[in-house]
């Protein structure tokens, strides 16, 4: 008897609250997070300690760097599943070339590679029109393979002490890595909310055809979004390598799933045109906290993997209830 929510038209009356801020869904999410925190703190005495909290912040920072720009990309209607692989590849390349190019040169090289990967993804999607899911999935495999090829399957240590400071050092009690992420976040937030670039992202994600016909250089914007995604993965790779002291070709396997889960959990819609960074921030915190809790409670990593799948399903289930979009990603953009 119930009316199918998908076919029901909306009335002429307006909702004055912009869904973009996601106040409605955001509050619910915040509540969820607070409940989570309370529950976990009951289960483990270490949870609310300062050390642990900083741990959480640090561990989500790598995820966060990527998630910020993946959010922007998703809002514009794109998707990049190759980020985890890029993180690993850049780490491997930086570690491999640190001798030949010096640490500074190697880092610069790594960043350029990240940009180029993003560029390639973007070109395949915008010029060739291949479905972004399949494109970045294919790139994922290729890039991951290359990471193994260049490293011979082995971890490569980073020898420079100064480099290690990036990932492990503090400024005024806060890890550098967290500071960097916060800066990225604030910058991205401002851009998305108040600038022409941000609006272009929302417009293109909302209706790329109309944006194109309105005179926006859609492909150019999409390309930059993919490039930023690749760049952010490169930055994340550099920080990760710095923290671990070594580059591993299998690093960040499955990272893309966490990124997608966090973003969608935070309210950004898979089909584009809707969403915001605050939600992503919350999404990351939720995932990171869950991760941390499972480690504190000694839950096997494989249960974590199952857990991630479940969380993703829940997140998208919520997404469905909120926006009712589906299937758009399977249609290749033409």
């Amino acid at each position, binding site marked *: 008897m119930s*009316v199918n929510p998908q076919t029901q038209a909306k*009335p002429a009356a307006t909702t004055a609250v912009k869904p973009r801020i996601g106040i409605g869904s955001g509050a619910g999410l915040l509540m969820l997070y607070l409940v989570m925190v309370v529950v976990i703190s009951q289960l483990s005495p270490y949870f609310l300690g300062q050390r642990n909290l900083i741990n959480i912040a640090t561990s989500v920072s790598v995820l966060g760097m990527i998630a910020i720009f993946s959010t922007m990309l998703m809002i514009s209607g794109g998707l990049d599943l190759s980020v985890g692989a890029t993180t690993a590849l850049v780490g491997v390349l930086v570690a491999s070339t640190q001798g030949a190019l010096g640490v500074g040169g190697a880092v610069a090289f790594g960043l350029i590679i990240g940009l180029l990967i993003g560029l390639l993804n973007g070109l395949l999607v915008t010029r060739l029109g291949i479905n972004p899911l399949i494109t970045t999935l294919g790139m994922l495999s290729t890039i991951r393979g290359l990471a193994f090829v260049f490293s011979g399957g082995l971890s490569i240590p980073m020898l420079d002490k100064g480099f290690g400071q990036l990932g492990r050092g503090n400024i005024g009690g806060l890890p550098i890595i967290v500071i960097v992420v916060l800066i990225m976040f604030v910058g991205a937030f401002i851009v998305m909310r108040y600038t022409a670039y941000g609006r272009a992202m929302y*417009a293109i994600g909302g209706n790329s055809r109309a944006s194109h016909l309105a005179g926006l250089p859609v492909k150019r914007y999409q390309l930059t979004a993919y490039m930023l995604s690749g760049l952010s993965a490169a930055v994340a790779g550099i920080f990760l390598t710095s923290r671990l002291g070594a580059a591993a070709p299998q690093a960040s396997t499955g990272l893309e799933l966490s990124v997608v889960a966090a973003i969608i959990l935070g309210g950004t819609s898979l089909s584009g*045109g809707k969403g915001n960074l605050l939600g992503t921030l919350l999404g990351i915190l939720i995932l990171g906290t869950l991760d941390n809790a499972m480690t504190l409670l000694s839950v096997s990593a494989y249960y974590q993997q199952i857990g991630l799948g479940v969380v993703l399903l829940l997140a998208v289930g919520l997404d469905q209830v909120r926006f009712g979009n589906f299937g758009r990603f399977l249609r290749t953009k033409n």
Partner: protein
Amino acid sequence: MNAEINIPLLQMQDIEKQFYGVTVLNKVSLDLQTGEVLALLGENGAGKSTLIKILNGDYQKDGGAILIDGKPVQINRPRDAAALGIHMIYQEQHYAPELSVAETLLLGKLPTRGIMVDWERAYAMARQHLNMLKVDLDPKKLMMNLSVVERQIVEVVKAISGKARIIVMDEPTAAFPPNEVALLFDSIRRLIEQKISIIYISHRLDEIFQIANRATVLRDGKLVGTRRIEPSLSQRDLVQMMVGHEVARGTSEQSLAARQTEAEPVLTVSGLTADGLFENIDLHVSPGEIVGIFGLLGAGHDAIINAIFGEIKVNRGQILIEGQPIGITSPHEARNQGIGLVPADRKVQGLVLDMDVRENVTLSNWSPLTRFGFFQNNREREHTRQWIDRLGIRMAGGMATKLRFLSGGNQQKVVLARWLEANVKVLMLNEPTWGVDVGARSDIYAQLEAMAAQGLAILMVSSDMDEVLSVSHRILTVYRGRLTGQFSRAEANRENLLHAAAGGAE
């Protein structure tokens, strides 16, 4: 056309419907006799679609009753409606491209032998159905290989073949050229003879007067009245019922006569050719001129403006802006050259439905509204307010209203406002008032006139003869991708336009 005056076949009594507390249908009643064609009229947003969707089971009514043959019925889902013999033919064509005509006609009901499909019988049945409309189509042909018109006809055949008693047609001729309307009307008359009734929704009043027995008019969710279609009823009477006030004619005669401009053309096109679409097009538009391009479906006239806008590749020929040849390969470049295009399908090509009025209006021109990339909110609001007032855009929540909540006519005004805000020199429009209600239509024409008076050059493609005749200063006709005629406003009339557009030799 005789209609039996017994118990009506269909009665919808005092239908009420609300969405989130907003009343969309307020005790609307209509009745349909057996074997009659009832036109359902009203501006967009009047409630026609909602009423029909309730009849079809897509929506649930909040109040009122539906009776078939005098007996109350419950229609909770489309399947219930289908079981009662109610069939819908929608405006948008929904079909699976890789299925054949036969499969489309018999979708979900293919004849089987055991678990296997009996293809011979399927094709035979399909041919039978097609013959009902005297349609000559190969049932084995794949849907994606048919023309738009052929596909619509298949759609009609499909509805007819399902033992329908009531067929609702929503703008069925929207994509038809004039001579194929007659074909459809013949079939409708045949259906009437078989005691099937039709509810016919259309903005084309001339069609209504040709085919309908009665017309029911809705306005703002309420029933205004039902009239018999007879000589004493005029189109303006119906329009008045739909709109509720006097509607001015498209353009005043005086302003048209005065438009003999000597000015240099802003836009000149010479020898423009796009292989497979149009060939050797020469035209020019001067500031202050409204040039209309009229053609039948498939004539390629809409492709011309898309090519000027950079959407379609041009193989030969030149485009000049203010005398300077330019190369345009994308709408982005076109906009930078001061050319704008209001596209034909606003929902898909024109608007970002989840953005609000303000954002959609300013979409094409951010530079005067931003400083170092940051939006100046006050300035943006000012600019938007200006267009809202001048075009009479109506929205329920101010300029923060999301576009999906606006009616078709107001949505179209937003697209128009966007290009006016972008300060273009040449504005091209593709079917400017398609699916737009009468009131909004006259607002749009008025604004086009006003902008032309201020020096804008307007190039308009339309398959609506009345529109082209009432608004344009000059009319060009296109047939099979070639220019076949040029008429001034004074020279043009329905006969010679149609003649030229149908390829008549000059």
